[in-house]
């Protein structure tokens, strides 16, 4: 197990260095003078220009700039936002819980609906319910989620007036963030109606962000289940007289879950990409919206820091999934 772990970690280091180089290059790849690009329409005096050049270290050799960038990044210093003047790392960490809360709810929704739906489709292969599940999954998989979000807003916020259009909680509630998760904080605050407000704000974004992972998980569960159901040990279990719920629930589902867990883990990238769109539609104050806003505001240190942090996060989650996979499936761990 240790060798397996070390092997995976050693693969990670070059990738991490590559990610830092990519994030480092970002500002330097912008065409033209980086200071003028960041200044946009604002004018920059020659003194201010020289000062900024020094501040960003653009006046030194490239490799020195990179080494310093890497050292700073490793100690959590990703520079300051040009707009708010706050450290980029702090900005990211303040907004990250909102994205995490939304993503967790979305993936939970996808799992809770996707796995049973996929299993039913596999067990009743070729039936109407199979076609319904797989048809819906393909539609979900093909969905432009930014449009899906707008449709839901038209229906539930516009016509039915059930849910609010944007934000995380109604403005009448105010309490200090404890965990950063609005669902938990609203409960802790003890204010009447705060939790319900948080939930009603969360429902539509969760559905929108969960749609594609849901479709992927349902499809993956179905194909994994079909494979397992044709195995000898399932036939044996049936032959020795076990009821269908036991055969499917215990023998088949447990083994079918191995590839499904990997699929769930690999949705992190999809979730973060989806968060960019979902948060933009629902004005959800998370890192996805922050990244888009930062690009529009030409707040390039924020974009750079965000790129690095998000890529590092995806990398770490993928590592965890890889390790989990090794734990669940000994064949992987012992191969080589």
């Amino acid at each position, binding site marked *: 197990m240790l060798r397996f772990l070390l092997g995976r970690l050693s693969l990670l280091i070059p990738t991490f260095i590559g990610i830092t180089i990519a994030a480092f290059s970002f500002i330097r790849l912008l065409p033209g003078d980086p200071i003028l690009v960041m200044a946009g329409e604002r004018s920059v005096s020659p003194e201010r220009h020289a000062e900024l050049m020094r501040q960003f270290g653009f006046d030194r050799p490239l490799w020195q700039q990179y080494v310093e960038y890497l050292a700073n990044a490793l100690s959590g210093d990703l520079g300051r936002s040009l707009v708010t003047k706050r450290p980029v790392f702090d900005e990211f960490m303040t907004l990250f819980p909102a994205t995490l809360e939304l993503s967790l709810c979305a993936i939970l929704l996808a799992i809770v609906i996707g796995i049973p739906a996929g299993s039913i489709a596999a067990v009743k292969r070729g039936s109407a319910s199979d076609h319904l599940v797989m048809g819906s999954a393909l539609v979900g998989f093909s969905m432009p989620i930014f449009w899906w979000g707008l449709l839901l*807003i038209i229906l539930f916020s516009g016509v039915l007036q059930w849910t609010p259009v944007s934000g995380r909680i109604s403005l009448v509630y105010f309490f200090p963030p404890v965990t950063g998760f609005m669902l938990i904080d609203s409960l802790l605050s003890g204010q009447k109606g705060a939790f319900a407000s948080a939930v009603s704000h969360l429902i539509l974004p969760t559905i929108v962000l969960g749609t594609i992972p849901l479709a992927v998980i349902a499809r993956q569960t179905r194909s994994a289940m079909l494979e397992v159901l044709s195995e000898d040990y399932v036939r044996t279990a049936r032959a020795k007289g076990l009821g269908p719920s036991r055969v499917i629930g215990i023998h088949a589902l447990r083994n079918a879950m191995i590839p499904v867990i990997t699929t769930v883990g690999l949705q992190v990238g999809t979730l973060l990409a989806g968060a*960019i769109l979902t948060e933009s539609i629902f004005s959800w104050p998370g890192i996805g919206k922050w990244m888009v806003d930062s690009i529009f505001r030409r707040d390039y240190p924020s974009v750079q820091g965000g790129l690095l942090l998000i890529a590092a996060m995806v990398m770490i989650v993928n590592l965890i999934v890889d390790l989990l996979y090794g734990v669940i499936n000994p064949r992987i761990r012992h191969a080589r």
Partner: protein
Amino acid sequence: MTVDTVEHVVIDRKRVGSLALLQEFWSYFRENRGAVVGLAVFILTCFLALFADVIAPYSPTEQFRDALLAPPAWQDGGSARFLLGTDAVGRDLLSRLLHGARYSLFIGCIVVSLSLVVGILIGLVAGFVGGATDTLIMRLMDIILAFPSLLLALALVAILGPSLTNAMIAIALVQQPHYVRLTRASVLAEKTKDYVTAARVAGVGPLRLMFRTILPNCMAPLIVQAALSFSNAILDAAALGFLGMGAQPPTPEWGTMLAESREFILRAWWVVTFPGLAILITVLSINLMGDGLRDALDPRLKRS
């Protein structure tokens, strides 16, 4: 019945080569009803896009000042003049959608060809040369894949400047690692097979070995991936357009149209609904086709 067709096809293949291969492919493809429907819808979309100039009642940029936000024909206040209604500056929605099909299909074609060609070349080199070159290439691909695709595309467009061309370049760059990985994996699997050794012994040079001997046997997964990335390219380009980082107004690109219509969502449902529906239908038809392609090209399923 199936047994008969299979035997028939095997004999035919020997006789007429690629035509029979195509027939064999079609006989598997048409078994998947969804795939056939997808193909039909896709061909229809291509037709509408090609002849948009002729079919569309108006120019996509012509503004009718007397009919701002006119509802679709079947709704109260709608008229047959504008079948799907008009947008906020009085442009005919149907004409814009028809011309928008051109953009989406064009984006798909360019992105897939670009990422496919570059991906195959890099993947061939990685798999064929091996060693340090292989390691370097694969680590580079890992780095690209570590970023969520849309985020990386956004950052690239921020560098290159928002436009349709730059959006296509960015999306192609983001998608190309998938082709590299697939090509490399198939090359590694094929490289050690006897027919390759035989060709090598017969004195076939490395370039011919790569492109004529090995590559044709690696195509099946690449074709399936191409279908998948065609639909992804359309979705991502529309997403970039929606965020204001893709095609710029007044281009009738579907994602850009959605972005323009956002402020009217509660007043005029049609300006939001139709462009998105167009994206969904196009992407869905391509994905249906992709599923059919996979079934028809996957040799493991064929034998069963």
